[in-house]
Structures are given as C-alpha cells and as structure tokens.
C-alpha cells in the first residue's frame, strides 16, 4: 500500500440511508482523486451505499490534538 511514489491517503465516509450520518469507513491509498473514488467504491462494495465521499487526509485539520489527524502516537496508544 502506498509503495508507489506520488500516492496520497484518502479518507472514505459513507452512509447507507439518506437519514444516516456519514461515517468514517476506511482509508485508501491513491495517486489522485479519480483513482481514490474508483478504489473506494470498488473496495468497500459489501454494502449498498446511499452516499460515499472521499477526502485527502491532508484536508483534515487537527482541532484539539497536536498529532496528525487519523493517527495515534505511541504515547497515546498505551
């Protein structure tokens, strides 16, 4: 995963029904948005989704923690 140069991590959010909230369902490595959308849809295909969206991990800004979003530092993990 991510072994090719120029890859980025994309966070995937989805909901099954219109009234559901978007939930974070996973992360995918892709070189651009087109491939992130294709991979997300084709990888997380066990459910019939009402909506799926992806965003590059870099787009997320930490609010309360110093660590990068979606990561857990060794100190926090214990």
């Amino acid at each position: 995963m991510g072994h090719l140069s120029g890859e980025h991590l994309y966070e995937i959010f989805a909901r099954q029904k219109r009234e559901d909230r978007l939930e974070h369902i996973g992360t995918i490595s892709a070189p651009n948005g087109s491939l992130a959308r294709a991979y997300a849809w084709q990888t997380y295909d066990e459910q019939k989704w009402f909506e799926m969206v992806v965003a590059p991990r870099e787009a997320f800004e930490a609010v309360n923690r110093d660590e990068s979003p979606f990561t857990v530092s060794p100190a926090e993990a214990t």
Partner: protein
Amino acid sequence: MSQKGTAGYRTAVDVPEELHADLASLLLSLADNKRLLGMRYAEWLLGAPTLEAGIACSAMAQDEWGHSRILYAMLKDFGKDPAHLEHEREADEYLNSELLDEPPAEWTGLVALNFLLDAALSVQIESLKDSRFEPLHYKVRKVLEEERFHFEHGRGWLARVAQTDAGRAALEEALEPAWISCLRWFGGGSGLVVRLAEAGIADAGPDELRARWLDRVAPAVAEAGLELAGVTDGSWAVPELDWTGWDPARRRSGEGGLNDETLAAVRGDKNRTMLMD
C-alpha cells in the same frame, strides 16, 4: 418514455422486421466487447501496478461479465441461442473491436482499453437510455451506474502514468491505435448505427456519438499533455478518419479477429465437457 413521441416497443416481437437484424447486431456487438473487455481486466488481477488496481480490475471484470450476460440473454428474444453465442462461435463471428483481439502487453495498453474503449461502449449504451426498445431502459441505467467508476479508474491511471516524460511516451504509444479505433467504432455515414438512430432505437448517429465520446475523454488527454489525433493545445475535434479496411457489419477492421488463446478462453473451451447437456 420513448423518443420522438412515437410508440415504444415493449418486446422484441414489437420491433419492426427491418430493424431486427440491426438491433440484434448492436446488442451482440456490445455483449461481445464487454465479455472480452472483462477478460482483459481479469488478466490484470495479479499483475496490476498496485493492489488497489488489481482489486479494481476484478470489480470491473465482474461488471463487464454481468453486462455481457444481460445482453446475450436479451438476444434470446431475437431468435438467438445465448448458449451458442457464448460457447460455439468462431473468431470471425465475434463483433469485437480489433483492440480486443489479443491481450495488451503493458499496463498502459490496459489503461487504453479502460479509458478509451470502455468509454466508447458506454457512450453507445447511453444513447439507448430512452430507446424506443423499452426493455433496454432499466438495464442501461444499471450498466451506466457501474461504468461511472470504470471511467474514474481509467482517468485516474491516465493522469498517474502521465506524470513523467517516460509515462507520457508510453501512454501515447498505447493510446494512439486505440484512439483511432474507437473513433471509427461508432461507424461511418451509413450502417446500422445510422439506421437505429433514425428509427429512434438510439438517440444519436455515429457523428454525434463520436463527438460525445471525444468530449468525454479528450479533456483528460489534453490535461495529461498527450498528443493524439485531433487534440491540440487544450482543444479537440474529430480528426479526419481513414476508413480503409473498415467492415461496417462487424464494426471493425475487416482483417483479423480474436487470437487462438483469446477465442479458447472466451468460449470456455476447457470446460466443454460440462456444456454437453
């Protein structure tokens, strides 16, 4: 809802006699191309540049086979035997694009099939979404929903490979024959696509379909900095096409056909003993 405010055809029986052969030929062409394209996707399950691309090829192969199965089944109503169509034809009876005659040697060749040929098939299928032949309506919508992600996959790989000079050169080499082949695939000034458009089975003839296809694929080609016929300095137009050797009935170059390995695989020759009943 049908085009031109005219009555729709609810079954194959309602389709006028003079349109039968053309409509059956269009469905068979789409079925054959999708069956073979699915095979080409499947061949990259284990050799794709990334794990994710292999998974995507698996998903796209399943989609294409699903689409071809639906189309072969529809041909039953046109007096064709789906089992014969799927397992008993010779190479010259397949209505496939010459791009599928043999497997692409490189990943860029698969990208060419994914981005250009798969899009050409989708443009043709989209022209049937409000067809007078009503059995197509629901099936076309389902196919196009899945094809959306095939297009994203092709476009994404085009952009990815085009990031380097070497990648762009490899892409141009792979895309050039596919580019001309896809432009020709929609057909010339006469032929079944013209007749089906005039009859309201499809909503456009060859020239309009070519323009739609170009508008779909050319922006990414231009953005990637690739030089292909008709694409210059960020704008595009259908280039002059050479129709030498064109076979309007098979919608392909008249010469050649599926190679032996492809024919054996697509017919399921190794499983013939299980097809006896």
